[in-house]
Every structure is written in C-alpha cells, then in structure tokens.
C-alpha cells in the first residue's frame, strides 16, 4: 500500500515538474515573440511593402516557430524565427510574380508602385513637431525605397544585420547561406545604400 502511494507521489511530482517546465517554456516563448514581433513586422513590411501582408507573414512565422522549434534552446530562436520569416517573404514574392503575370494576362496588372503609399502607411506620429515628423517620415521613406531597390539577398542581409542586430553567424542561419556570403551581401548593400542616400544623408 505504502509502495503504491510512493509510486503515485513520484508520478505526481514528475508530472508537476514537467507541467512547470512547459509553462516556463511558454512564458519564455511569449517573451521572445513580444520582444521581436514589432521589428519583425517592420522588416517584413519593408520587404513586401504592405502592412497587412506583413502582419500575416509575421503571424505565420510565430506559429511555425511555436509548432516546430519551441523546444530548441532560446538562443537559437532569433535566427530560426527570421529564417522562417525570410522564407515566407521569398514565397510571397514568388507568388506575387505569378499572380501579376496572370493579372497582366487578364489586363488587370498593376505596378508595385501603385499599390503602396509609404506616407499613408507610415506609423502614427507620437509627440513631435509636425516638421520633425515630416522630416523623419521622409527620411524613412527614402530609406525604405532604397532598401526595396536592393537585390533580395542584399536586402535581407542588411535588415537582419542592421535592424535586428544579428551577428554574421546568426544572419547566415536566418538566410540559409554561408557567413562569407552574408559578409559579401551586407558589404554590397551598405555600399549601394551609401550611393543612393549619400546626397540626402551627408
């Protein structure tokens, strides 16, 4: 009888411990996602130039991370999350290309530029003079346009390194390429942006 009670107690303790670990993991994941989601949204938005689409892509990346990688060490989450997001962005661009071809065939094609008004989609102002707001928004608009004009891999490398602050190794994981490629893409991106924005930013 007492042996039975002992086994039951051990089993309960083990279950309680597993439950506590699960809860802690969930809290950690929640904290991670809350910390990364806003930057991820802006990065996706710059890449696809549509906030609603970017929100969908970020949500999808969060779900995939939770479903497939929640048990991985926390320090791996950032590159994994951005890898999922970048794959989503690449898929989105592929689908857009096909969709545009079909729409052009039906005579209803639109240019990308017609679909996105950066100023109209700019974030809400927060306690600054209208002149300051306008200047900042215009500078961000120029930056977004310049980043958008970069080749896709350069754009990814620049945003992951500069905006998200990933190191070269983390960026390589997120982009699914070698560290050497990251360095090359990043260096070319910075150079191209200097050329494009130089006159405005000197």
């Amino acid at each position: 009888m007492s042996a039975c009670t002992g086994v039951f107690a051990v089993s309960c303790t083990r279950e309680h411990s597993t439950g506590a670990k699960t809860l802690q993991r969930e809290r950690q994941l929640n904290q991670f996602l809350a910390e990364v989601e806003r930057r991820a949204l802006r990065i996706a938005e710059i890449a696809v130039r549509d906030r609603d689409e970017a929100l969908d892509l970020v949500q999808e990346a969060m779900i995939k991370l939770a479903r497939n990688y929640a048990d991985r060490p926390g320090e791996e989450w950032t590159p994994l999350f951005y890898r999922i997001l970048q794959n989503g962005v690449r898929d989105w661009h592929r689908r857009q290309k096909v969709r545009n071809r079909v729409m052009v065939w039906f005579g209803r094609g639109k240019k990308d530029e017609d679909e996105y008004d950066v100023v109209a989609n700019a974030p809400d102002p927060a306690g600054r003079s209208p002149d300051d707001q306008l200047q900042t928004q215009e500078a961000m608009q120029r930056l977004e346009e310049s980043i958008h004009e970069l080749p896709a891999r350069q754009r990814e490398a620049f945003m992951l390194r500069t905006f998200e602050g990933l190191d070269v190794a983390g960026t390589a994981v997120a982009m699914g390429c070698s560290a050497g490629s990251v360095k090359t893409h990043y260096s070319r991106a910075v150079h191209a942006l200097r050329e494009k924005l130089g006159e405005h930013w000197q």
Partner: protein
Amino acid sequence: MNDPGKNEQVEKQAKTLFDDSVERLDAATLSRLNQGRHRALEELRESRHSAPWLRWAPAAGVAAAAVVTVIVMRGPDVVEIAPVTASDFEMLLEEDGFEMFEDLEFYVLLDEVASEANGDVG
C-alpha cells in the same frame, strides 16, 4: 568603396530611423501582433496536448492516397507497385509540400489560363 566611417554613418542613421518607425507603430497594429502571438502560443499548447503520432497523420494520409492512386490507375490486374524511394517519402513529409495544396485552386486557375493560351478550350 570601403570607408568604415561612412559605412558606420549609414548603418547608424538607418538603425535610428528604423527604431523610430518601430516605436511609432499604431495601436491597431500592435493589437494584431498581440493576437498573432497568442495564436502561436495556443498552437504550442495544442501541439503539446495532441498525440505525437497525430503530427504524421497528414503525411500518412497523402502517402496512402498516393498508393491508392497508383493501384487504381494501374488497374486491378496489376498488383505490382512502383518502388517508393526514401526521397519520395522525404518529399511527401516536407512541410512546404503541404502548403502547396492550400493554393490548389490558384494552380488550377493557372493551368486553365495556360490551356486557354494554347487554344485547348473547346
């Protein structure tokens, strides 16, 4: 080309502008991000409560459907089934493969468009 000072200036200014735009995200957007995060956490809870073998159920379903298709197409007299390689299974189990089915209607539309272009409609 490689002026570290100027590169740093571009990086710094871009980061400042980016952080500023992140800070100024509106309440509606933040709310949608919050909802998305909670959906992801729900997904995590559900995946923990479901039996591990259930994760393979869709893949097993597709594999079974493929086998049935082969049998039906080859007729009742032929019992020989084409050998299935490891790479076939890998392709079936790959998550991205399933996402394609979500867009099935779209691919059907593409097929129709291509057929019409070739003058197959009739």
